[in-house]
């Protein structure tokens, strides 16, 4: 499918924000407007990298993304605007305009601009957050994605998605959220009750309408040791629509774990 040339109202297929489509890139998320939409046969839409030196507008300020391997988001803050960002751990820092400030992550990948229309909220996996505009409310809560395994007399706890999950909501107007994802990024709109299994650490963000829970799969086969069956299991995160999800092509290698003793809400498939 080829994107139409910018004429009048243009709705970005990646962030769904309307603009006049001029300037070559979406002013809300920086995605190219003149690029062919890349959709895999199964329905994943490849998020194009923000074009080098593209501008994104928010409030009375701008953000310019430069670089392609580990992009830098450089913000020119108007004196009415402010942004906040994570300073390594525990604390959020605030930068108030006027002035310039720049952000980048520590791995090759893509900077994702997620414009949030007023009232919209999304869940973001921990450590993906780069920076957000002042009118985006932040809170975190327990991810409630966990399971335990038995190790001798000890019970080991596992959090495949991280212990907590970040939640961002636009309040009092449109906001902008910048994330960084290693590797390539793919987005998909799930229909109501449509399910897909993804590696838990491959998830970047999801609409809050998307339900998630663990799914354990035990491959069919002959095993040398009884414990092998547990080691060979696949631990998935089930995402169930309706809503949009985004995943990254890089994910952490799942840790080896034994017999699942207790779990947050989960399903199991024995093949």
């Amino acid at each position, binding site marked *: 499918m080829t994107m139409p040339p910018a004429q009048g109202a243009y709705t970005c297929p990646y962030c769904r924000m309307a603009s006049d489509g001029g300037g070559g890139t979406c002013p809300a998320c920086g995605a190219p407007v003149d690029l062919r939409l890349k959709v*895999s046969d199964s329905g994943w839409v490849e998020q194009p990298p923000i074009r080098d030196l593209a501008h994104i507008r928010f409030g009375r300020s701008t953000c310019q993304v430069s670089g392609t391997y580990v992009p830098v988001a450089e913000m020119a803050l108007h004196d009415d605007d402010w942004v906040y960002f994570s300073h390594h751990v525990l604390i959020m820092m605030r930068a108030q305009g006027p002035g310039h400030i720049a952000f980048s992550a520590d791995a090759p990948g893509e900077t994702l601009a997620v414009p949030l229309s007023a009232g919209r909220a999304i869940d973001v996996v921990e450590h993906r957050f780069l920076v957000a505009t002042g009118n985006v409310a932040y809170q975190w809560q327990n991810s409630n994605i966990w399971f335990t395994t038995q190790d001798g007399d000890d019970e080991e706890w596992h959090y495949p998605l991280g212990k907590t999950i970040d939640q961002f909501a636009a309040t009092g107007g449109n906001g902008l959220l910048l994330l960084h994802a290693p590797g390539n990024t793919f987005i998909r709109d799930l229909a109501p009750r449509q399910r897909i299994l993804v590696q838990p650490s*491959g998830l970047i963000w999801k609409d809050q309408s998307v339900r998630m829970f663990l799914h354990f799969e035990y491959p*069919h086969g002959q095993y*040398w040791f009884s414990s092998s069956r547990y080691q*060979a299991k696949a631990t998935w995160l089930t995402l169930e629509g309706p809503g949009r999800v985004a*995943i990254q*092509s890089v994910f952490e*290698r799942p840790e080896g774990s034994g017999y699942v003793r207790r779990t947050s809400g989960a399903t199991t498939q024995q093949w």
Partner: protein
Amino acid sequence: MDRIECQWCKAQNETGRTNCTTCGAPLDTKDLVTDSGWAEAPRLRDMTEFRFSNSTCQIEGEIVPVAEIALAQGDSVFFEHHVMLWKEPQVPLSALNTGGGMKRMLGGMPHILSVAHGPGRVAFSRDASGEVVVLPLHPSMELDVREHAFLAGTHSLTYSFVRIQGLVNVLHGGGGMYMDRFVTQNEPGLLLLHGYGNVFQKTLQHGEKIMVEPGGFLYKDSSVTMNAVKQNVKTGLMGGHTMYLAEMTGPGRVGIQSMYVHHGSE
């Protein structure tokens, strides 16, 4: 009827095609070969699709590419289970015992490989920047691959593993204790590897040698022998430094990757 030969896998393609149907390599670009004879593995175009058996594989992304496979009924692929990025819920999984359970555990290799069966879709990726290398294997071929480098292999491949010979090779070779070995019998197979950084291939003549940094070794035909060779480097009147390189002796292909983390040769 005119055909276009793929410069990477030598398969014949219909005229007018821009990508090889067997390995996805671009057909309309010039081969890139360095002055010393290393051929750059073709960078697969985003969303390139190619076929094996009755199934298709599509490569998505260019930083850490994803191989998305649409498995037809009766087809299957095997892989190390931690490389699955996503799958459709109805795709059945089974386990493939590799044999040598304890030896493989000691060598840090999985002793069970997972198998995904068609019909349905499953996608694979690794954990760092690089490229997917598609190696179609014709009948009666044997290919040795650095451990933890293969992404997926089709059901027509026979999987085994070979121990790297010699304590020096194991301790200083930088490739671990074992190599994966993929063998085709009577029908062709397809092997997907993930090379970190860029991947280059050189075909060695009989007796021809090349020294490579062991951490950069990615794959070789089984006809190529590999030995760790000690190199003494003088750093002054009294000083010296020892390093090990992998000496590859032809005949056959050698594949290397440009990015690696390796400390065994220092």
